[in-house]
């Protein structure tokens, strides 16, 4: 079901948290709300669920205006960060709870619970108590409970934050699989860009209560609208150089670096600019030479990560396949791939 949020405004104790936000989540899509803590992403999520009320604005589930409806009448499934399973009920009773509240008949409940348990791969755990489950299993139960009454939208609040690294990988693909199999519209809140990129159809990046950019993960990575977005996506993160415009080039005078601005010709000389270079676009191959020294090297197995300190103190990050390993302190003359670099104005807007 398509969810739309129109002109949404929310303040807590006089502090504006969300200001005039508009967002549409398409039917069957999984959307990530991505941003640093305090950006309003959880507020948005809990507003959709009905736990928070809008101060102003409208929330539509399909054609239905649900802005004034309490949580109970919204038909929303929520997976909380700590799963919020009911500790005194076993797994079956946990999953069945939304149905028993609705007073479905016993046979239906049994069938529904078993079907959803099969989908989430917890059929053999139905007799257990939440306290006897691992984190990943609890997560599956929470998912099953949220999905069992076929909600209009599934909301996930940092669902992977409490899992260890290996389980996180497993649950990442599991949540996506279950979402695709049920075809449910889903919203995921996270501050982890890897989660957002790997699980979702589209990402909405938020900053200080505003949506900065909303796009598919691939488009957002290759075409960030601001330096904030560019800095948020990608691991290892992008590195920035400060410089000025000079004869249709981005220029850092002290190290005699000149990167042609290409399509962005006609910027007045002397304008302050920022150049964003992703680690994969800086290395032994490319077109603009930069000299520096390896200031930091980290082995990651298949790849190595380097920080290259330039003569003026700025740092460029690089990721290189393992093989030829550069040592700490080694002087290098590497190249920036100028066509893949992003040019930002000084206030962070992409040119």
């Amino acid at each position, binding site marked *: 079901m398509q969810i739309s949020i129109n002109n949404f405004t929310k303040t807590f104790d006089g502090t504006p948290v969300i200001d005039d936000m508009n967002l549409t989540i398409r039917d069957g899509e999984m959307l990530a709300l991505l941003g640093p803590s305090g950006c309003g992403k959880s507020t948005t999520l809990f507003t959709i669920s009905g*736990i928070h009320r809008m101060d102003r604005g409208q929330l539509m589930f399909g054609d239905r205006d649900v802005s004034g409806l*309490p949580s109970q009448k919204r*038909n929303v499934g929520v997976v909380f960060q700590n799963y*919020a399973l009911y500790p005194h009920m076993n797994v079956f009773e946990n999953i069945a709870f939304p149905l028993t509240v609705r007073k479905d008949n016993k046979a239906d409940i049994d069938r529904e619970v078993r079907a959803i348990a099969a989908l989430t791969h917890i059929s053999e755990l139905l007799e257990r108590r939440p*306290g006897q489950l691992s984190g990943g299993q609890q997560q599956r139960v929470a998912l099953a409970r949220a999905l069992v009454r076929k909600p209009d939208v599934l909301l996930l609040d940092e669902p992977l934050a409490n899992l260890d690294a290996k389980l996180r990988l497993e649950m990442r693909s599991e949540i996506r699989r279950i979402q695709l199999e049920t075809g449910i519209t889903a919203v995921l809140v996270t501050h982890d860009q890897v989660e957002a990129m790997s699980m979702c159809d589209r990402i909405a990046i938020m900053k200080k209560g505003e949506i900065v950019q909303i796009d598919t993960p691939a488009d957002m990575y290759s075409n960030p609208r601001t330096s904030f977005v560019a800095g948020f996506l990608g691991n290892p993160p992008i590195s920035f150089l400060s410089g000025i415009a000079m004869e249709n080039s981005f220029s850092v005078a002290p190290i005699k670096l000149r990167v042609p601005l290409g399509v962005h010709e006609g910027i007045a000389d002397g304008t302050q600019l920022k150049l964003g270079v992703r680690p994969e676009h800086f290395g032994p191959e490319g077109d603009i030479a930069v000299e520096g020294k390896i200031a930091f090297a980290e082995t990651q197995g298949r790849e190595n990560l380097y920080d290259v300190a330039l003569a003026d103190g700025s740092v460029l990050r690089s990721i290189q396949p393992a093989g030829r390993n550069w040592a700490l302190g080694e002087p290098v003359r590497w190249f920036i791939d100028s066509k893949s670099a992003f040019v930002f104005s000084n206030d962070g807007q992409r040119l």
Partner: protein
Amino acid sequence: MTRNFAAWPIILLLTVLSLPLFVMYLFLLVDTFSNTAPGSLLPNEFTLEHWRFLIDPTITGDVWKPTLTTFLFASSMMVIVVSVSATAGYALSRLALPFRRFVLSGIMVMHAFPSVTLIIGVFLVLQFAGLYNSLTGVILVKASLMLPFGIWIMKGFYDAVPWEIEMAGVQDGASRFTVWRRIILPQVKPGLLSLALFAFIDGWSEYMLPRILAPSSDFEVLSMYLNTVSDPNSSTYNFNIFKSVGLFYTLPVLALFVLFQNRLMNIFGGGTKG
């Protein structure tokens, strides 16, 4: 397992210190089943005659009626305290009530207030309500005097229940009341149980209030009954019978303590481990 110190000196010290108490209780028990010659310390015959008051009402009057009254008194008080504390504690812990802080600090003050000082006011209220000299009146007063403690304890238990569980319940389509009854209440069950026990024991041992607020009524609780038995001016005065009645009076409390001591300790730990 290694020990940093020997345990026996402590055990010895504790034994010596608690010996008088222990001996006292032992003699209480022994004396109810035996006769001792005058001047002698040790009993010389086994007898059940001191327990005859259980079946023979001519000795000290019928014991079962006061027992039943006491039971009724303690359980009604328990029901009131538990049901009011369970709901009020939830409201104070979770709902956005007007004057919440004021009510909370009020409860705190009431909890610390010596209840005897209220007795004149209570007397006036009961008189006005026409409940003076009635069992109902005493039950209501006793229960309300215990409520600050009960509400405060239950609020603590509710506070320990995570918010998310409650939100999950609401999100699953349940009303606030259903969430409270089916999800939150089971989480605070240890608290409810120990509060119920405390209330019952407190009611069981109450002497003052029935005495003051219902001095001339026709009901009698066990503590008052014990008082009549121990009256040295009465014709039925018998020290061993007094001891037997005392023991009989204590037994239910002892039994409850033995059965539920772990639960009772819970109230001070305040923990709710689901």
